[in-house]
């Protein structure tokens, strides 16, 4: 299982190599034996992407956890895939630098996993997602060969294979050495908490801030259900329990005067948009407390029920009010509790459905509601995942956003890197939807593991 409780798999074997050389030897042995394998970091993913089936070997990379180099002057670091995101941030900080992508699971998730999933996080609104921060990779292909792609200067050295590899969910191989871009730490940070009596007005405030030409470092929204879950937990952050929604807005920069001036503009916009109150964190401790509530919201919601499905979809920002309203209607229709905590500035929604997976009828309703939520987002011009990946959980939705030609093209690209489809088989691209392309090319489709897996266990 990974962070998504609705899928469970049991691999034949689990291997935890302790060095790059051991990893290469393991993958070469698996290649010689023709055994499929699944690379896995900390297992915090939310799409079932790091699950290995019977017949597969799980290759866990958490012991490859060394930071090999930090080049302060040129602002990059070279790390092994098992380095924990927050630990890289901590190592960069004394140099006045940061690794900007900050998924909510950053205290546990690994850089290798971030690369595989093209992970995001609250501060990606200003600083960009993982793909914007990866300069070069050493990649271990399924056949056991090592390939260097990209360069520390950022020029790809040929076609942008680094850009292609990031977000490929392990299907193209394992990133064994990762060169990441580090950015200067902001010198000034202002964190605001604004509360609203309606989700709609909170959504309008988001649009007003973006339209003003200000790019906050983060612009996060939580609805009342989420607020109450946080406030009832050990992560209580002082959010107003009676608010229909709160916005957490962070403005940062290298110039204090500019940050202060932009903060003043944002405060005015929040009030004009109908905020009942706007509170500014008065200290670093208060700022951390406000952020802890947001980043631990998923954990806090764990108290609501035995299981939690964290959904992930993206819609155009302007569609947020309508889509949130529709999600609420869907939740009512199926008699479910849906809490929303999400990256409002990016339009990246995370509707969370609390339920008990041991109740088959409830589970059926959760799956039906999830599908309707996805269809709502697609109909609004959005997509099925902004940062969690397709994995196995969203395979069924891929034909809703890509036609057979496009899915076929993706599958054919995968075959270039892994002709036998042994790395993380059955993920990302629903092969049955693109058979025509691959047959037309004479590619061999499908080791037995290549077919899409069945539904949740």
């Amino acid at each position: 299982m990974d962070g998504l409780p609705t899928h469970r798999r049991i691999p034949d074997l689990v291997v935890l190599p302790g060095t790059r050389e051991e990893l290469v030897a393991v993958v070469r042995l698996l290649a010689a034996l023709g055994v499929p394998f699944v690379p896995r970091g900390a297992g915090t993913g939310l799409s079932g992407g790091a699950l290995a089936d019977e017949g597969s070997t799980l290759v866990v990379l958490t012991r490859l956890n060394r930071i090999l180099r930090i080049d302060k002057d040129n602002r990059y670091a070279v790390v092994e895939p098992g380095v924990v995101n927050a630990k890289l941030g901590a190592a960069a900080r004394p140099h006045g630098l940061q690794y900007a992508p900050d998924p909510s699971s950053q205290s546990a998730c690994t850089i290798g996993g971030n690369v595989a999933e093209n992970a995001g996080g609250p501060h990606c609104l200003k600083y960009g997602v993982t793909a914007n921060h990866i300069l070069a990779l050493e990649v271990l292909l399924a056949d056991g060969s090592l390939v260097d792609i990209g360069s520390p200067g950022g020029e790809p050295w040929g076609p942008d294979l680094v850009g292609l590899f990031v977000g490929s969910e392990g299907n193209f191989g394992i990133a064994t050495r990762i060169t990441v871009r580090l950015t200067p730490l902001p010198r000034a940070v202002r964190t605001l908490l604004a509360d609203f009596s309606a989700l709609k007005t909170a959504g309008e405030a988001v649009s007003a801030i973006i339209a003003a030409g200000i790019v906050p470092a983060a612009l996060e929204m939580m609805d009342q259900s989420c607020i109450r879950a946080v406030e009832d937990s050990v992560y209580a952050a002082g959010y107003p329990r009676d608010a229909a929604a709160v916005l957490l807005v962070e403005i940062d920069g290298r110039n204090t005067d500019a940050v202060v001036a932009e903060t003043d503009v944002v405060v005015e916009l929040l009030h004009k948009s109908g905020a009942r109150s706007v509170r500014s964190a008065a200290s670093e401790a208060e700022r951390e407390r406000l952020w802890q509530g947001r980043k631990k919201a998923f954990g806090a919601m764990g108290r609501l029920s035995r299981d939690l499905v964290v959904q992930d979809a993206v819609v155009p920002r302007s569609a947020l009010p309508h889509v949130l309203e529709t999600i609420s209607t869907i939740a009512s229709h199926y008699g479910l509790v849906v809490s929303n905590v999400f990256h409002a500035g990016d339009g990246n929604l995370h509707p969370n459905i609390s339920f008990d997976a041991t109740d088959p009828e409830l589970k059926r309703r959760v799956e039906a509601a999830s599908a309707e939520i996805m269809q709502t987002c697609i109909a609004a011009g959005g997509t099925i995942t902004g940062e969690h990946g397709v994995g196995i959980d969203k395979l069924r939705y891929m034909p809703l956003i890509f036609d057979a030609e496009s899915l076929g093209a993706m599958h054919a690209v995968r075959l270039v890197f892994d002709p036998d489809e042994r790395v993380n088989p059955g993920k990302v691209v629903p092969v049955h939807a693109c058979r025509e392309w691959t047959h037309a090319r004479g590619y061999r489709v499908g080791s037995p593991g290549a077919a899409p897996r069945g539904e949740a266990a």
Partner: protein
Amino acid sequence: MTILDKVTALLGEGAVLEPSPDRVPRIAPGSPDAVALLLGTAHQEGWRVRIEGAGTWLPSDAPADLALTTRRLDRIPAIEPSDLTATAEAGIGLDQLRQQLADHGAWLAIDPPGLAGRTLGSVVATGSAGPLRHGFGPIKDHLLGVTFVTGDGRMVQSGGRVMKNVAGYDLTRLQAGGFGAFGVIVLVHLRLRTLPRADVTYLLEGAREDLTQVGEDIAAAGLTPAALELVSPALARRDRWVLGVRLAGSPALVAADEAGLGAASGGGRFTPLRAEEAHAFWMRLAEGFAIRPVTFRIAGVPTASDELLDLLQHQLGDEWISASPAAGAIRWTGDATIDRLQRLRRTLAGLEVPLTLERAPWPVRGAVGHFGAYREGVGPLVAGLRRTFDPGGAIVVATEGS
């Protein structure tokens, strides 16, 4: 039946333009579907097709049976100012696109080299970022998705129209800077910004080493320029090197940076430009790279910038150079022989610095290639991708060189 007869029967007379100077038939499909039809036919017939935009960047000289120009794909199906996104066809000229976006208060924060009418598709296919790369990143960071047609006429979508998207593999980044090796881009989904409410440019003239130091001081002072570009005297048409600093964003941000600029000038004096002067300066810089026969870019780590500039001057002469030292990006244009370019590329490879040939006459780019030889293990991957997206090799493109 000639190729021209067959194409006319396929797409109609309206798609047939005046032939190129080398007498190659020039075809301008009027829709993405027509591009697919043409390439599908070319694949079946074994025709070799060269891809052109407005014809202002790469010379129209690659040996081919026909030239496919995207210039009639010039529509902008959507501009969404509230979402800061737009969708544009690949043949739209950047000047037209900029104007229409500005009418909606939106801005595409790129300033690639080339003439004002250079097409969007050309910029994406070559991955040619300009000075705004300093503040807003490479071309690929401005793309939300693309639709492209493969060499055998299949239409493929990648990405979408929203700010974040990890559904499926990122074929958009493969297309950005792929020089058309993996298909013809027909539609582009763009990430926009609001038109900057403040946008000012300052220039400082001086010795190259001194200006480099000023650039470092600006970064150390915490200023956040949109562009910080070091320009050679020949390109700037000045007596000495010039450091161009562009500040763009909210009035508060720009005012704060302006206040800090003087302290970082190293005793020199920045000259503010009037709006029309600033426009002319940056346009001249962009257009300068479309005049000389050969243009290439290199990118090393920032601390190597000085050494790389010295190397260029030593091996190719003090021609027209523009550099973004903090980003490690350098662009050179001038006249260079095949031998010299190949020697320079070998020298740079020893320093772990790639050279991407952006523009040159066919004999040069055919021999040198846009990318040159790949590193160990990369060649088979690129060849496999090329076979995937252009199985018959219909698209004429010089990636590796001969």
